[in-house]
């Protein structure tokens, strides 16, 4: 039986396909966006429908400084990835650690806000609809920041051990896609919670 073999006539000269890491991360981002969309819809749907206080207008303060921290970390991670691709290791590592610091600062900001809301205003997830939707949405985002920080820290540890070089630049770009996504989500969450929601 020789009719069927795999020796197909050779035609393709240059055959370039996208990197699987980037495609998969794009897929994950689409899926995550859908999850966030549902939480955002729930937040907007329940605006002003709480039967008891406190209301967003009474207790929320706009976290401008921490927002600037998180958004600028997008810039630092982008530059870090660029430096790594060009093989400038120390600049990569410096900017990478700066990204982690900025992300950590943002998380600290969230923690502080939650502490204030819980202990000063008595707002918990079970207080009213605002509490439920607020902690869920902001918490979901904070969870993603935390997951991102864990990955960034892993890279930092490997980087400090001299294990991250030009070869890993593709992986780093995939990771930075995720971090940009986390930042972009914050833009939406910030708009919904602190601008439209008050």
């Amino acid at each position, binding site marked *: 039986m020789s009719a069927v073999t795999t020796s197909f006539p050779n035609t393709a000269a240059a055959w370039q396909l996208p990197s699987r890491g980037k495609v*998969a991360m794009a897929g994950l981002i689409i899926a995550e966006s859908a999850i966030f969309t549902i939480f955002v819809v729930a937040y907007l749907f329940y605006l002003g429908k709480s039967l008891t206080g406190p209301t967003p207008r009474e207790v929320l303060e706009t976290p401008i400084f921490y927002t600037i921290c998180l958004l600028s970390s997008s810039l630092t991670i982008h530059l870090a990835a660029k430096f790594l691709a060009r093989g400038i290791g120390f600049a990569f590592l410096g900017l990478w650690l700066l990204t982690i610091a900025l992300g950590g600062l943002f998380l600290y900001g969230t923690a502080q806000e939650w502490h204030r809301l819980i202990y000063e205003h008595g707002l918990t997830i079970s207080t009213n609809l605002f509490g439920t939707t607020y902690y869920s949405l902001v918490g979901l985002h904070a969870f993603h920041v935390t997951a991102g920080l864990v990955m960034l820290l892993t890279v930092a540890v490997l980087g400090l051990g001299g294990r991250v070089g030009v070869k890993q630049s593709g992986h780093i770009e995939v990771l930075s896609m995720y971090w940009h996504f986390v930042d972009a989500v914050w833009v939406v969450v910030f708009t919904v919670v602190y601008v439209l929601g008050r």
Partner: protein
Amino acid sequence: MSSNAITIPGTQIQARPWVDELHQWLTTVDHKRLGILYILSALLFLVIGGVEALIIRIQLMHSHNDFVSPQVFNRMFTMHGTTMIFFVAMPVLFGFANYLVPLMIGARDMAFPRLNAFSFWLSFLGGLLLYFSFLGGSGLYGAGNAPDVGWWAYAPLGARAFSPGHSSDYWTLALLVSGFGSIGTAINIIATIVCLRCPGMKISRMPLLVWLNLVMAGMVLIAITPLSAAQMMLLIDRYLGGHFFDTQAGGSAVLWMHFFWIFGHPEVYILIIPSFAFMSEIIPVFSRKPIFGYPVMVGATVCIAFVSMSVWAHHMFTIGMNSYANSFFVITTMAVGVPTGIKIFNWIGTMWGGRIQFKTPMLFSIAFLFQFLVAGLTGIIQSSAPVDWQLSLSYFVVAHFHYVIVGGILFALFAAFYYWYPKMIGRMLSERLGKWHFWLFLIGFHLTFDVMHIPGVLGMPRRIYTYEPGRGWDTLNLIISIGAFIQAIAILVFVANLIISYFKGAKAGNDPWDAWTLEWSVSSPPPAYNFATVPTVASRRPLWDLKHPEDPDSRYE
């Protein structure tokens, strides 16, 4: 023999002890083995879900029956629906996608083999978690074990107050876990198709099965995730005292319905699109003609995926939306019939003038065409909101969606089993048993689900555990139940066929159907590495080109 098996002297595979073999299967990252694991786990849950269906049908056989208690009846229909959708239909379709997509695009494996294994085990363990509720579900309250809130768990039924104990928690967690598995698999399928196609396999040359699975995976990303999000909210409500669906605190029960059906309706298309994919591969081969209207088929699929995202609230006409919302969802629902009609037209166009071979896969495919058409037509009937007000939550709806899922998806799956089993196992399924399976299942199916429309029109509501005599429902329900048992016998014939043919079936060879896609160019079952040399393709039917060098397709594309 073909030249694609690499023979390395001295390293031939010896018979291993079964523990080793089991270990190999449990730790595998090979897309073919994972595909088979997906399919086996789905078959296991198919039998369980089928037994639940039979319990439902025995209970409804005649009026005032007390075969099971109302509480058990609620558990049975909840578990039947949840099992069949999440732990039968999804895994079996993912299994076929896993097995076939890399082979059809000339790849070595999926893009992320370990993610693939992880996703499979998530979905399988999700199923076990659901069934563990029978043992661990009663919790502190002694309040019933398995989930009993219906497969859509409308609020506030899922809330702590109305569903004490842990049964709903098992339901939520099982769906959340298997949902993450589905997302992983979807990402994997997309990355595989986008990034691992062999040279020459432009997207305009991909087999339709690959195209349709790409669309399906894209839908999984945006349709399964709302369900995951809603389950997280339900968990927050149940465990952290949240108020998302707590009407006492201003929460909305209708919001849960929206979130559920934003998932629930696209889910139907997530299941039916891979079934379309099987049809688009099988019908051409057994009609001995290339698919009619390839680009239109792709376009129609994308169109279905797009429109199906905006039809969900046709499940909610009876809750009282305003007339603008009703009109919108009526129109979108009717619109989705257009691309679907195009597909049916194209399959018939493929068969038209072909030399049709009535082998078992083709028999199931032809039955699929008719039954899916009828299912679509009863769908169009109900898409009209006033008609839906009358028919919603009656057995007419139950008959309609079983016509889609059994008459459409399951028939397509059986066709796929008979078509690709030789590739996966290396032996043909028996045609004799196959014909028995087909005719028995066809008769049983029509006895059950054709007749089921009638009590629906007569006003029999779904999910009732029994009914009064003298409403004209008794005989009909008896016929429906008899049909269910005929289907069960057909399934037994099918399982017997799978087992007997595994040992005794005729050797399949590489290409038993004289087909045209790449999976038939390798041995059956394919070697672990799939292709000894990376294939290069120049048309949509690479094997046709190879078999007919004097008249290749590539000349016309």
